[in-house]
């Protein structure tokens, strides 16, 4: 990354938004970071992906520590998911370093839209039932 005061400020602000969304939604925040690092910071796709994962480590640890104190984390489930996750991540990262991921991204996008719409609809029903 080429250092300039303006860019550093923007990167820190984006980092803030990433941390906030990550802990609120239980996601890594890479969906914001990867395009940002490619388009604004000027990193290559692969370096942006690796850097995103690196940032996610401390961010998720801090977010989880607050969720743990509030009693929202299920450690037994987290361990099982994490065990599968490590295998998946190693496979996925090796694959990413070798191929163009475009068709996979589109498949993933459709999945996310369908499940997102369903989740929002359930939330709407819950709120309507509560009011």
């Amino acid at each position, binding site marked *: 990354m080429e*250092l300039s005061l303006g860019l*550093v400020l923007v*990167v*820190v602000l*984006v*980092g803030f938004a*990433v*941390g*906030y969304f*990550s*802990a609120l*939604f*239980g*996601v*890594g*925040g*890479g*969906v914001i970071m990867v395009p940002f*690092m490619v388009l604004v910071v000027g990193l290559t796709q*692969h*370096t942006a*992906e*690796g*850097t*995103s*994962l*690196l940032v*996610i480590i*401390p961010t*998720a640890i*801090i*977010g989880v520590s607050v*969720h743990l104190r509030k009693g929202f984390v*299920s450690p037994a*489930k987290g361990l099982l*998911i*994490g065990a*599968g*996750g*490590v295998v*998946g*991540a190693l*496979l*996925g*990262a090796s*694959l*990413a*370093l070798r191929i163009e991921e475009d068709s996979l991204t*589109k498949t*993933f996008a459709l999945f*996310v839209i369908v*499940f*997102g719409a369903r*989740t*929002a*609809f359930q939330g*709407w*029903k*819950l709120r309507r039932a*509560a009011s």
Partner: protein
Amino acid sequence: MSRATERVYLVVVGLLGGLLGGLLGVGGGIVMVPLLVIVAGVSQHEAHATSLAAIIPIAIAGAARFGFSGELDVTAAVFLVVGSLVGAPLGARMMAGISEGTLKILFGVLSAAIGGVLLWS
């Protein structure tokens, strides 16, 4: 779902989340959260928190693999982390303060928007 089936299912959820995480450089939570809520019947709050916990080993394994190929920019990472460590506790407290229904709507809208951006880009 029996307990054994649930265990296998959770490992598969992790596999899918990790695969996506490693492939796209993200955490994989956008896939793991709905899989936990819709199929495993976990509450939205527990799914967010547990997904975030599972993201820690996923990100460590993924970052190690990319790092092994020299695909890391430590300077960018440091400045992003400076911001994210301030944002994360605020986001976590925000989650604790909102209802199940509202959290579902927010997650659903975010998820659909991310899917739309990915499909369009």
